[in-house]
């Protein structure tokens, strides 16, 4: 894997200043300055929802609570995403330092890494790193302790409130929002839940400063981002790329010369057909990822041998299994979308039925309880709209 990484060096690189030195430097500053730096940097959550990280920390710092928590969301489950695994394998100190800075800023004494169940093999490695981290905290007089919590394999637990329920021993079902975790999170206490990569990026802001950070990327999408490239590509792997890349450039770099479509943001993201590569930019305004789901940065490339019907059906198979099942639009909507396209394909339903299904995705988008149900519409409508004939014939 490693030789396939395109080094932009921001996230996965080795730097003269070690992550714990970055943390030490940060701990000498006032928390409010770190927060305002983060806000100025424009860093947005790398899990997919793209919420301003600085604001999240600010809310948690301002919230009343005798106890606060930092949770690192490492429940990487979005189909086609595998970058958090690499971060935790290659640069865990950066993640831990990011957590340490966050703990200092919001006043947390306890942190958790919610680790995807399938990444269990990383536990010994991470535990060694955490032990070393604790020694550094002791030296820096930071009263902060991190524990690993292993998930059990439900995709929805990447949604932050479902993740908190799971940690508390309840079913992994998203909660009603508000209240938000920054006020009412783990055990009802103010909690910051950040994606692995977000924590690294927060640490990057501390290391290189706001100005340097803002030089990376484009307006509204600053910094670099890890992309998990998979599918019909001669160069699958993880790439540290700046925001602002057009999909056309991306395909020229990674495609196999026969690229038909790119699924940006995994199953909960958007499918872009060739005719739109030029006009699509990778970054938050262009719809980098889906909405509020575990992991951003999944790039799946499909060439002309692929049936987009099968691709969509595959996603719907995934969603009807991985919906938590509590809310009507998501639980039943996902099933309906799947049986619906099957019926159209078989000829049991007229092609017009696809309009009914598109209307259903509109309903799901505006009524589902969490990002999972809301973002099923993304892949469905972008595939059905762009590859309608493949759905029918």
């Amino acid at each position: 894997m490693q030789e396939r990484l395109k080094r932009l060096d921001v996230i996965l690189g080795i730097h003269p200043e070690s992550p714990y030195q970055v943390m030490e430097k940060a701990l000498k500053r006032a928390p409010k300055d770190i927060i305002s730096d983060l806000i100025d940097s424009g860093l947005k959550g790398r899990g997919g929802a793209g919420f301003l990280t600085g604001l999240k920390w600010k809310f948690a710092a301002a919230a009343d609570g005798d106890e606060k928590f930092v949770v690192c969301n490492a429940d990487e489950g979005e189909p086609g995403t595998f970058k958090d695994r690499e971060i935790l394998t290659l640069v865990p100190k950066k993640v831990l330092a990011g957590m340490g800075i966050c703990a200092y800023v919001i006043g947390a004494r306890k942190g958790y890494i919610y680790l995807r169940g399938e990444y269990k093999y990383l536990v010994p490695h991470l535990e060694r790193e955490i032990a070393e981290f604790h020694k550094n905290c002791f030296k820096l007089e930071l009263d902060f302790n991190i524990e690993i919590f292993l998930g059990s394999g439900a995709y929805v637990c990447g949604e932050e409130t479902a993740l908190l329920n799971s940690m508390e021993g309840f079913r992994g079902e998203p909660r009603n929002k508000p209240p938000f975790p920054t006020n009412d999170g783990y055990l009802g206490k103010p909690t910051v839940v950040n994606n692995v990569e977000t924590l690294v990026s927060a640490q990057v802001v501390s290391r290189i400063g706001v100005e340097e950070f803002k030089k990376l990327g484009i307006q509204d999408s600053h910094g670099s981002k890890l992309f998990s490239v998979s599918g019909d590509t001669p160069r699958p792997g993880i790439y540290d790329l700046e925001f602002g890349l057009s999909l056309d450039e991306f395909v020229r770099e990674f495609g196999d010369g026969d690229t038909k479509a790119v699924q940006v943001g995994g199953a909960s993201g958007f499918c872009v057909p060739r005719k739109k590569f030029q006009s699509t930019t990778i970054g938050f305004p262009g719809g980098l990822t889906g909405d509020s789901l575990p992991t951003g940065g999944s790039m799946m490339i499909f060439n002309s041998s692929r049936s987009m019907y099968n691709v969509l059906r595959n996603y719907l198979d995934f969603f009807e299994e991985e919906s938590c099942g509590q809310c009507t639009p998501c639980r039943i909507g996902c099933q309906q979308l799947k049986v619906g396209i099957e019926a159209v394909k078989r000829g049991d339903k007229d092609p017009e039925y696809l309009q009914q299904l598109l209307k259903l995705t509109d309903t799901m988008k505006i009524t589902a309880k969490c990002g999972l149900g809301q973002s099923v519409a993304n892949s469905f409508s972008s595939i059905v709209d762009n590859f309608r004939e493949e759905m029918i014939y």
Partner: protein
Amino acid sequence: MESIKNIISVKINGIDVSIEKGTTILEAARKINVRIPTLCHHEDLCVAGNCRVCVVEVEGAKNLTASCAAPCEQNMVIKTNTPKVRSARKDLIALLVSEHNTQCTTCYRSTNCELQALASEYNVDNNTYLSVLKPGIQVDRSSWSIEKDDSKCVRCQRCVRTCAELQHVNAITVAHKGKDMKISTFMDLPMNEVVCVNCGQCIIHCPTGALTERRYFDDIWEAIGDEKKHVVINTAPSVRVAIGEMLGYAPGAHVTGKMVAALKKIGFDSVLDTNYTADLTIVEEGTELLGRLKSKIKDEDDSVALPMITSCSPGWVKFIEHMYPEHLAHLSTCKSPQQMFGALAKTYYAEKIGVKPENIVSVAAMPCAAKKFEANRPEMKSSGYQDIDAGLTTREIGHMIKQAGIDFSEISDSDFDSIMGDSTGAAIIFGATGGVMEAALRTAYELITGRDVPFDRLNIEPVRGLEGIKHAAVKLENCLEAYSFLEGVELRVAVAHGLKNARVIMDQIKDGTSPYHFIEIMACPGGCIGGGGQPIPTNDKVRMERIKAIYEDDADCKLRKSHENPEIKQIYDEFLKDGPLGHKSHKLLHTHYTKRNRY
């Protein structure tokens, strides 16, 4: 000033509303009589926000908002009835219908189903979507009390929240995820093998026909049609204040006379009163309590279990058997009024009217689902036959009256038959939480002191009402000679309803910190008037109306103390002979309990 700070204002459909901070959009809308449809919402339960039917538009929000779960914020602009909202709701209802067994014509809950009502209101086309109802769903009829039909489940989780929050039983829970998500039991076991206490609260909180009581009325029709059978029915106190709701009356309507008349018209050979055995329970249980107090206080026998706890509620009895099996000695050994009635119907009553007990079919009209289980407990055969052949719910009785073609509003009042039809006000109040305690105190205090219980007009207000746990204390002074050992004792009592509250009481006993001598526990919130066999909907407003009717009935009675019931005096003279807790009453009117597992 403090309260003014907590008042915020919002605009709902153009109308300004001032509400307290923390009020949900749904509650705010109800304040100005704007109805927002709901399905997973229930006044008794915590917010779930999972059916999404209550969505509304909030200005500035990208998505629609579930009004049951969203608190109002200052200056929020809310619209509850826009094309976007209506279209989304209709779509959601169509989805629920597509997952539902829509054979409404044959559903027990038809016309009393919240999904059916919504689908009709929104004119949902059954064919909007393909059916995704799982094929081959079997109805779980393993329990004596409860039928579970997953094909009619809308996954609102009201039953799950009921079982967990109100009852602390957790017999049913959510299992699996995604398309396979369903309401299930521990290890998917049938209902009769799990900790279910049969209280039926899940039934009265279910919006559809997914959870219903197991129906026995067809068997009863058979028996009524059989010339050889003598079919008797005893009706519980809380049924008479609720049965009206099944037949078009408002909650709390007084329809006792009509109910008796309708049951006679249905063809029951004799319509008798559970109140009679409620009075008998008080005499037996009061005697038992005095006996325990005597052993403990006078004889200093520490093996005697105090506090003593009532045993009228079969849901509660199964709860303690499962959850606190090591504390069964605290339960009164008295059978419930239903089972006392059953034991006497096939002995005393059979003798009196000269019918062979094997030809008697003994039916109970109950507010309860657990009474069905209780009737089938193996130990409930002290007459030599199954003491109660069937326990029917208030809802089943309502159905029978309809099936018989009786015009309930036109029918004239009738009186209970005799014998075993006389009762006092003390028995009527068994139907409300605190009623057994009040009845017991009226009798016990008088037995001990020879005087009326020292409360205005015998109304022991501290044990009335819907507060979860209620307490009272009565100082015993100038006791009669036989009870001189109680002189100066402050008799401390408590009343709990809803098993969540029972747990609090039991944990005190477990810890050895219970300060009480006598405790009344009812499984259902509100007591029997809120029982799992009562008309749907049941909520606090309805409970209060039924309770009001109960106390009005009590106040109207000439006799308001159980021991004054002339038929009770008669049975001790003629049949039970050696008094309360005597040999015969021990055999017929008392029982024992079974230790069960916690899972």
